[in-house]
């Protein structure tokens, strides 16, 4: 007979699992409520989700206290990992989700929000992402990734438009291919090292001095392809614009932030040791990814006629920009990544929310898409406050100081400078200038063109409710007064990143 396995609860460190469990419980609760009594209003689910996210947030605070005291904590058979990266990423995930979920409280009725499943899936997705970042184990990363992704595909599809389904199918198919890449890559590393834990892989590889460098590179190539898909690096980005366009505006904004930060953290865990082991190939490939993604995505963003699609390309470009942090790989760069992403969260969610409040139920005849540039012509005359806030987000995205993203930009560029990537720093800077054009384009439409006849400005806030306005207000305040928060944020992030050994 098998001897009973004695495991003390202490060694399990259930605490490490708590942050993921909370949204799962929340999701289950929502489903149960629906079973018990159906047809409840979406506000209930929104608030419930929010509450669970709040609890999640507090459990993260707890965990971070644990981390500051004890350093990295392992739990659940050493599968779960609480370190600085995990915590920071989870903070971003949870905060972004908390900012996202009230956006369901729209003035107009939308199909997806009437289903409690939407909120359940949403919470499952968050749990998936949390798992993904809070582990060192490739299996769990994979599981987390797929959990989140599958939930996400469904969420996109629930928007219930032709374009949404198309987007979901595209995203799903490509995601499946990427999952194939990921598992194949994992397989190669497993074959090389006999382990699926990143730190062990690193140790083994270092121990034999990267003897099988060719295979390591092949494995890395597969992993890179999988992450490049998730991070929408060119040429693995093709899903992004279509999916952003197909999904609802807040969902697009959410997608530009949360899945990517999760992927970044994993990429950081996975590639950092490779970068530091002096593999030239990886340097070159990452360099190429960074530059091509930034530049080409910018060029495509230039020629868009739809704001949302423009923002999609802009998000790709931002991802490329931040990818530079992985390439550089210093503590400063990694901290800059998180700083950038926190700030990006506010600004980008803000701008997508602005699109969301101007969303009509049906497309007017003269518009080719939901958020064409023409729609925003002369907005300053008809809806000045909305125009100014939108302009603010655009300026922040363009990196105009002192708005939020500027700080992320200088810190990231500074990290490139500090590590001797001069050319990279210059290219990053010049790309910001190119990007300036398409953000400016929207500002030009809003502030400098004449409004279309018969536009009384109501359409820009047609979908607005107090909840949406509050979220936008928070995003706007966060964007404007970012400079107050930079120092504490930076200290917090740097301490966490540094203490995790990155």
């Amino acid at each position: 007979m098998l001897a009973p396995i004695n495991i003390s609860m202490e060694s399990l460190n259930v605490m490490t699992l708590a942050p993921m469990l909370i949204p799962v419980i929340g999701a289950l609760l929502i489903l149960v409520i629906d079973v018990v009594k159906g047809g409840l209003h979406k506000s209930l689910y929104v608030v419930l989700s929010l509450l669970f996210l709040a609890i999640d947030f507090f459990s993260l605070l707890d965990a971070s206290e644990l981390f500051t005291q004890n350093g990295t904590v392992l739990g659940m058979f050493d599968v779960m990992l609480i370190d600085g990266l995990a915590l920071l990423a989870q903070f971003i995930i949870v905060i972004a989700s908390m900012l996202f979920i009230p956006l369901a409280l729209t003035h107009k009725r939308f199909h997806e929000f009437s289903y409690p499943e939407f909120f359940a899936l949403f919470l499952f997705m968050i749990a998936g992402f949390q798992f993904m970042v809070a582990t060192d184990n490739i299996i769990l990363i994979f599981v987390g990734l797929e959990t989140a992704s599958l939930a996400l595909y469904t969420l996109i599809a629930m928007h219930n438009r032709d374009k949404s389904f198309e987007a979901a199918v595209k995203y799903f198919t490509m995601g499946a291919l990427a999952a194939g890449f990921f598992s194949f890559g994992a397989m190669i590393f497993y074959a090389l090292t006999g382990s699926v834990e990143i730190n062990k892989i690193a140790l083994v590889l270092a121990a034999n001095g990267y003897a099988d460098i060719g295979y390591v590179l092949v494995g890395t190539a597969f992993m890179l392809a999988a992450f490049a898909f998730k991070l929408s690096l060119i040429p693995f980005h093709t899903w992004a614009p279509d999916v952003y366009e197909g999904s609802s505006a807040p969902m697009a904004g959410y997608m530009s932030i949360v899945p990517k930060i999760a992927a970044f953290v994993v990429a950081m865990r996975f590639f950092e040791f490779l970068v530091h082991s002096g593999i030239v190939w990886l340097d070159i490939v990452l360099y190429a990814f960074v530059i091509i993604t930034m530049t080409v995505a910018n060029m495509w963003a230039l020629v868009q006629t739809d704001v949302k699609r423009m923002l999609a390309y802009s998000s790709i470009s931002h991802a490329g920009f931040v990818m530079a942090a992985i390439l550089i790989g210093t503590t400063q760069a990694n901290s800059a990544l998180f700083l950038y992403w926190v700030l990006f969260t506010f600004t980008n969610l803000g701008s997508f929310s602005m699109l969301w409040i101007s969303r009509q139920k049906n497309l007017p005849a003269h518009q080719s898409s939901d958020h064409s540039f023409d729609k925003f012509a002369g907005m300053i005359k008809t809806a000045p406050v909305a125009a100014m806030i939108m302009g603010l987000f655009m300026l922040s995205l363009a990196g105009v100081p002192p708005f939020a993203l500027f700080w992320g930009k200088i810190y990231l560029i500074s990290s490139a400078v500090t590590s001797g990537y001069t050319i990279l720093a210059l290219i990053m800077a010049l790309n910001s200038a190119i990007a300036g054009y398409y953000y400016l384009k929207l500002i030009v439409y809003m502030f400098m063109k004449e409004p279309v006849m018969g536009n009384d400005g109501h359409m820009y806030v047609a979908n607005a409710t107090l909840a949406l306005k509050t979220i936008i207000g928070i995003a706007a305040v966060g964007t404007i007064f970012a400079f107050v928060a930079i120092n504490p944020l930076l200290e917090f992030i740097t301490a966490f990143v540094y203490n995790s050994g990155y």
Partner: protein
Amino acid sequence: MLDHILSLLIFFPALAAVFGFMIQKESMRAYGVSVAAIEFALALWLWYVFDGSVSGMQFMESLPLVPSFGINYTLGVDGISVFIIILSAFFTLLGIGSLTDTKQVKYMIITLLFLQMTMVGVFAALDAIVFYIFWELSLVPMLYIIGAWGGPLRIYASIKFFLYTFAGSLVMLVGMLFMAYFYYQATGVWSFALLDWYRLILPETFQLWLFAAFFLGFAIKVPMFPFHTWLPYAHGQAPTIGSVILAAILLKMGTYAFVRFSLPLFPDAAAFFMIPIAIIAIIMVIYTAMVAYAQKDIKQVVAYSSISHMGIIILGTFALNVEGITGSIFLMLGHGVVAGALFLLVGVIYDRRHTKLMSEFGGLAHVMPRYATIFGIMMMASVGMPLTINFVGEFLSLLGFYQQSHILTLLAGTGIIVGAIYMLAAYKKAFFGEVTNEKNKNLPDINKRELFGLIPLVIVAIWLGVYPKPVLEPINNSVKSIVQLMHNKSTTALAKERIPNLVKPKVVIIEKTIIEEVH
């Protein structure tokens, strides 16, 4: 309050702008004028309490912003910046006061007040990042002013203005980050404080690269040839008030930054690049003057003339001696007053006829004698007539550069010839001759509101031409300390040779005389 007068100067207009949203439309102009007047009074007060005999920074204030990254909100003024700050307050007041009826005057005034904040901020900032923040932020209101109130090509012009400057300043930002990194390497502490950077002596190669990075940002702003093409568009399309502020203050940011950053931070590089930059400056002077001569639109003449004058400013700056730099700073003020006035004047005629083509005019001196007189005075100031403000600056700039190169000064000096050519030709076309166009026969002469903007400028243009001392002296004191700093910091023989040492008394000439007498 004195401790925070600079913050007050910066944020008072911004605050007023925010409150401005609450003001009712008809009262907006009065509100704007009062705010600008208060701001100007504060600026004058700053001058009053400013100690002109001190060469260092005054009214310093510092507030940690991102201390872990060495960014502090540090402000301070010295003789170099204090007058440009006053000038910007002055021009905002005149600009708002003489604002002719435009659509959406409320937004215009709010935008101007925001612009005011950024302008003062740029000149008062002593932290590179704070400087950069205001520097970039100043683009936004200007973008709006050009784009929303401009002519038919306004969108193209405004985007060009924004992106061009933006691109240049991003390269400059990389330079700043490098500079901070070098400081970090040297001291182990991050700092973007200018006064800290001043103490840093960099190897020459680093200096050259950093100089180039900063140069790009500044050169586009100035704008220097061949980065100047955004300017004619911006001026051509901008409404009067936009051109006035752009020419009077915004362009000065670039030249000011050369003095504030490039020279004291990279003295060796400044000495190294002196001749190439002087050649660019000369191209600016002559080439743009010729282009100005070919213009058909009187506003474009003034626009290109701005570039031409900026050439002299650059030349004076890179004379690297006290005379030249003092002159160039004075010329910044001078050109601000004169170009601002000229754009206001062009605005006067534009308001009446809605055209700026010189061929549409002719004989205006008959119908608008007062206007012609003021225009004439400002034109003469522009061509550098002695006893007007521009002459002092041009004279000193050229005089300063003459020490460095005779031939180049001679070439740059042709500016006084070519400058006279396009200005006189333009004046002749617009004002002299018979009134041929029927529409011009009954043009009303200049009115009170316009005079409100112009008379003070005329007074200043002549007052500071005749008696520049109150301004020149503080500038001189501050410049002396910068030149001495540059000399002390420089490492190459070339720089030591080109940048004079002020501590040692000049003995060369005296010795020579004595020797001659003995023989």
